[in-house]
């Protein structure tokens, strides 16, 4: 009994190491934050609160800001002296530029070669490291859990708390093991896996819990694929998602600009190697998933849990008003087959699927093919570094030859607050993370899928199983 109680999960280890003050029945824990990422949308009110209280940013060295949500992706608006088209977005960008100067924090700004979506650039820089606590005023902060960090989204008031104290008041979440065994079949990606997990446990299945993705199928994923999985933990309602660091993690981080160097690297790897759940450690909840049985997945409704294998038909549900409302919004009928439905837009990008491997996947489909007449394929790299790499590898040429629109990095059409919008009523196969009503623009109808599926559907103009276009 005593022995089993001393067995700890990965989450327990990271949590305990960051308790400045442990929780009591009357007070939450004071939890130390190693890295605070911030962007232009959720920070202005926090800076205002600091200013009102006369407080500085306490640990500037643990704070990293960038611009991603409101920023245009049109090259002329980023680099060419053409004003940002959306006035309010321009104001928000300038507000963060001013706040960064006033409070002395590092901002990877509009024309910085290291700029990009906050959840893409922090791993790229090696700022995201195993065992850290990482927060950001953004729910997709869960992405960084791919490195064995405890990373979660917070609101703007809490952004202010971290600025002022480098800490947060938190109740300890529960733990949830997501065991994924088997091999993902050909053409089935990390995106399909996480959509299948959300379909299984539901959009509130993880509420109050930190997920740990484990098992042979997770160990076989690259770091970029692990980020795709952890990114969408919040779409299952989870506080965070984590994966124990391993050789793939260390290989990814080695020699990154902000990774430890020399003897510090060796010490870090030794420390990071201990960051795994003890064998036999107990989780509050668990689920087992067989990766070998999965297909490409696509959503058909207005939350990420309304998801199907691409060859399936929309289920029939009686007496469910929310289900009927979602289908009415999407313009679908129960019993419809997903394959072959016409689309108008395909979007490849976002913090979920805007990394180099995602673009390589899209290029495998698009090479030597053309986007269907009348379909807009928008491909937006997750960062300026991803953009440069994609251009150096010739991927951008493949995209342009196919008739795709190739842009500067940013959140773009995932959130539609930067001028990149899906017109009302149109269907968009999107590699992003949310198919909520209006997410990609008022009246837009979003179908979440992998980069393979988005690219294949752009080519045919219809929802298409990408395995038909991938050479075995």
């Amino acid at each position, binding site marked *: 009994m005593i022995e089993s109680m001393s067995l700890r999960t990965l989450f327990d280890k990271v949590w305990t190491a960051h308790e*400045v*003050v442990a929780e009591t029945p*009357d*007070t*939450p824990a*004071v939890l*130390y934050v*190693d890295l605070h990422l911030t962007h232009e*949308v*959720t920070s*202005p*009110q926090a800076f*205002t*609160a600091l200013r009102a209280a006369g407080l500085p940013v306490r640990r500037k060295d*643990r704070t990293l800001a960038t611009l991603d949500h*409101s920023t245009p992706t049109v090259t002329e608006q980023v680099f060419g002296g053409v004003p940002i088209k*959306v006035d*309010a977005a321009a*104001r*928000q960008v300038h*507000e963060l530029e001013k706040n960064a100067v006033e409070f002395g924090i590092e901002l990877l700004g509009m024309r910085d070669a290291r700029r990009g979506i906050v959840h893409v650039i922090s791993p790229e820089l090696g700022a995201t490291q195993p065992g850290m606590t990482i927060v950001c*005023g*953004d*729910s997709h902060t869960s992405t960084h859990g791919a490195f064995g960090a405890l990373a979660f989204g*917070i*609101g*703007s*008031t*809490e952004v*202010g*708390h971290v600025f*002022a*104290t*480098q*800490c947060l*008041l938190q*109740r300890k979440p529960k733990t949830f093991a997501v065991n994924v065994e088997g091999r993902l079949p050909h053409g089935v990606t990390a995106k399909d896996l996480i959509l299948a997990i959300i379909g299984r446990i539901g*959009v*509130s299945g993880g*509420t*109050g819990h930190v997920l740990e993705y484990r098992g042979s199928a997770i160990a076989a994923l690259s770091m970029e694929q692990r980020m795709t999985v952890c990114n969408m933990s*919040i*779409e299952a*309602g989870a*506080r965070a998602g984590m994966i124990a660091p391993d050789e793939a993690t260390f290989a990814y981080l080695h020699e990154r600009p902000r990774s430890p160097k020399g003897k510090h690297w060796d010490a870090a790897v030794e420390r990071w190697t201990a960051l795994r759940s003890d064998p036999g450690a107990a989780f509050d909840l668990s689920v087992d998933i067989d990766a070998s049985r999965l297909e490409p997945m696509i959503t058909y409704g207005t*939350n990420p*849990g309304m998801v199907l294998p691409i060859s399936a038909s929309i289920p029939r549900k009686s007496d469910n*008003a*929310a289900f009927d*409302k979602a289908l009415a919004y999407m313009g679908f009928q129960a019993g419809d087959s997903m394959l072959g439905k016409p689309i108008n837009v395909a979007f490849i990008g976002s913090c979920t699927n805007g990394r180099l491997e995602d673009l390589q996947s899209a290029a495998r489909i698009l090479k030597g093919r053309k986007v269907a007449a009348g379909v807009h394929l928008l491909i937006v790299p997750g960062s300026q570094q991803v953009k440069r790499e994609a251009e150096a590898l010739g991927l951008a040429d493949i995209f342009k030859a196919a008739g795709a629109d190739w842009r500067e990095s940013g959140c773009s059409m995932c*959130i*539609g*607050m930067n001028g990149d919008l899906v017109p009302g009523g149109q269907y968009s196969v999107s590699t992003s993370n*949310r198919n*909520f*009503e*209006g*997410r990609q623009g*008022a*009246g837009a109808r979003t179908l979440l899928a992998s980069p393979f599926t988005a690219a294949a559907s752009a080519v045919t103009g219809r929802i298409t199983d990408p395995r038909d276009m991938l050479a075995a």
Partner: protein
Amino acid sequence: MQPIRKIASKTVVMPSANIDTDQIIPARFLTITTKDGLGRELFADWRYLSDGLPNPDFILNKPEAAGCRILVAGRNVGCGSSREHAPWALLDYGFRAVVSTEIADIFRSNSLKNGLLPVVVDAATHQWLIEHPGAQIDIDLERMRLTLPTGVSAAFPMEAFARHCLLNGLDELGYLRSRLQDIEHYEAAHSV
């Protein structure tokens, strides 16, 4: 922040499950740099037609919704984006409490920090509320009970420290700053 002890009001009922924060306040309204005035855009895409006129079928545009301070929503309300603009918009519109069987983590935390009460009730109480839109109910934060007009009263959970702050009108930052010495000790001990 003003202390909060009791809220007594008629309810507005939105029975759909999974009302996400993109519905509560669509992303195009997040370009503001203050917290003010978001009530006008609350539920904008449900509340207004494409020509900008009020959608007469939407609950907040019906006369019986006027002055209601309590929103009863389907389960998992507030899921999705971490935008604190969601509770800011609800408060600016006039809501003081959101009642459901399940409330998403980040939305619940954001609501508590702004004086919007997230009240999680049992399924039977919730069902009664869904079936009786416009019911006059009482929410007592001190006793952590929600009372229906039938006289039936149901307990609801509330995190102890958040409750203490709400009852006394305290800001959580004040408490965090009172632990600065502990934070400095932690940093020294961990060389961070």
